């Protein structure tokens, strides 16, 4: 790790290489970043488990069996135990993972698109438009996100779609800030001025010339946004305003767990571990991508 980072910094000081070479180097640096690999593997493992797992397990995630309530882990086929209604915890965890991961990804896509458009417009036009848009971003950031999210959640009918939308609505600001800074800097570069001179339209310069050069920081911000979206979903579901039972999500599985903490602690431990694993995975991956794609930044 130590040498990795030192190397990264040395390379950053070298003169710019052609795109092809630098892409290989980025990949090389990325592969050497063990934490990022760990993150990527964790994500793949979770996605695969949640995608095929529910089709393999002998239990249905909604099947209630009062004879097998509160079985501790490793009882018979109940690997992770069972909950207060005798439902298999592992089956529920995997179905919940589908919901939580889907919301995380979908919210990331939505907020990245929105944030990119706002940031690109603000950075490109600058002056009044830029100032107004970025002040607006600052104003949204003044609201503590859980408060804003819960207020919005109370007004809507909770479903996967609406939850995704309100999470996206409260997490696009970071991307907007990143893109605004990038576009503002790129706008002054020779190729942008040249494109303007040959009469390219504003939207062409913005989205075809400038934005492709800002992809790296957007990817990093997007990866970290997935982590945050999964966390936010778990918060509002835990508090009862997200995904509604009997449909499981990692957050709402913890909703009831508190009252059984004494007798069935596994109900609280496993869903929380799943959230932590997923979020850690995306955070490690995002951090590794940042090192790999932008050698100028150091952690």
């Amino acid at each position, binding site marked *: *790790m*130590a040498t990795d*980072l*030192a190397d990264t910094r040395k390379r950053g000081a070298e003169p710019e290489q052609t795109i092809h070479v630098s892409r290989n180097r980025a990949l090389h640096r990325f592969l050497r970043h063990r*934490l990022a690999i760990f993150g990527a593997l964790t994500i793949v493992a979770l996605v695969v488990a949640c995608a095929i797992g529910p089709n393999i397990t002998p239990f249905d995630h909604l099947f209630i069996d009062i004879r097998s309530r509160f079985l501790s882990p490793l009882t018979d086929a109940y690997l992770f135990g069972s909950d207060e209604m005798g439902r298999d915890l592992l089956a529920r965890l995997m179905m919940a993972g589908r919901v939580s991961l889907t919301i995380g990804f979908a919210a990331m896509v939505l907020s990245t698109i929105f944030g990119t458009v706002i940031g690109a417009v603000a950075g490109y036009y600058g002056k009044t438009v830029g100032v107004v848009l970025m*002040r*607006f971003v*600052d*104003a*949204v*950031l*003044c*609201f*503590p*996100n*859980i*408060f*804003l999210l*819960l*207020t*919005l959640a*109370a*007004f*809507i009918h909770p479903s996967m779609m609406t939850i995704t939308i309100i999470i996206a609505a409260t997490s696009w600001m970071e991307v907007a800030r990143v893109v605004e800074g990038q576009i503002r800097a790129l706008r002054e570069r020779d190729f942008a001025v040249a494109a303007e001179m040959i009469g390219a339209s504003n939207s062409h310069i913005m989205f075809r010339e400038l934005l492709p050069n800002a992809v790296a920081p957007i990817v990093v911000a997007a990866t970290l946004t997935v*982590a945050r979206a999964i*966390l936010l979903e*778990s*918060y509002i579901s*835990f*508090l*009862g*305003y997200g995904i509604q039972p009997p449909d499981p999500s990692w*957050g709402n599985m*913890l909703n009831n*767990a*508190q009252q059984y*903490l*004494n007798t069935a*602690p596994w109900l*609280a*431990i496993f*869903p*929380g571990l799943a*959230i*932590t694993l997923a*979020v*850690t995975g995306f*955070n*490690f991956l995002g*951090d590794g991508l940042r090192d790999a794609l932008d050698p100028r930044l150091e*952690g």
Partner: protein
Amino acid sequence: MTRYLLSRFVQSLVLLWLVSMIAFAVLHLAPGGPLSQFALSPGMTQAQIERISEQMGLNRPLPIQYLDWLFHLLIGDWGRSFRDTRAVLTVIGSHLPATLQLMVSSTLLAIVLGTWVGVLGAIRRYSLFDYLATIGAMVALSIPTFWFGLVTIYIFSVRLGWLPAGNMFTIGDGSLLDYLHHLIAPCVVLGLVTVAIWSRYMRSSMLDVVNQDYIRTARAKGVPERVILWRHAIRNALLPMITIAGLQLPTLLSGALVTETVFTWPGMGRLFLDSLSYRDYPVVMGILIFSAVLVLVGNLLADILYAVADPRIRLD
């Protein structure tokens, strides 16, 4: 200095105005608008709803309504709670101290522990400690606060019985010691994220400082390393952290809401959730706006404090 403060103040006013616009939009974007709570009560006819909307002035043009709403906000008339008809600001005020106590104690924890971890990570850069602190901070930022709270309760209250599982006081006991005993767990749970963020920023702030010329000068004139570290490096590295403390306010407030829920701590976050479940919208909107204003004022204060503490800033 005066110029800097003035421009910073004007900036905050503009932000405040934008915050009020967003809050107003949230209130009116809700399906059914501010009257949505009546639409849910079964005995309500359409005619009655229209009459209420007439009485409350909701059929006026939106800009007029906004100005009217903003005016009442500014003079401190934030409406009344549906639950007990107390003024919203009074209700918030009665729950605010508990939240502030939690936030301040967690911030103190972050200042002590986070500074220590950050400084040690910076002066022993790329050591095993630095490596573990980096990973630890990232994992800490990935743990859902409520789950960490549940695990803490399970280990320290259920299993070991060392700490109370919730509330601020034992019933019938109001001593300071009892209060502190109840404060430990929520403070640590809320502090986890704060310590993690603080240690990361402290580390990079420290790395910035140790490469400065004045550190080299101090070394060159033979100042002992201990004195350089404490008097020259750490003191200067702490200055930008004033701004970081301000920037962490939204995270801290969000965390406090979750922590208060898990530990049944009678603060603003708990009040917010209770009000949500009672559909007590005046209080909900009040807390939403109040928390944003708290963040704004906190950031303004942090910037002023920073300018006072660090003369270099005022020159910009």
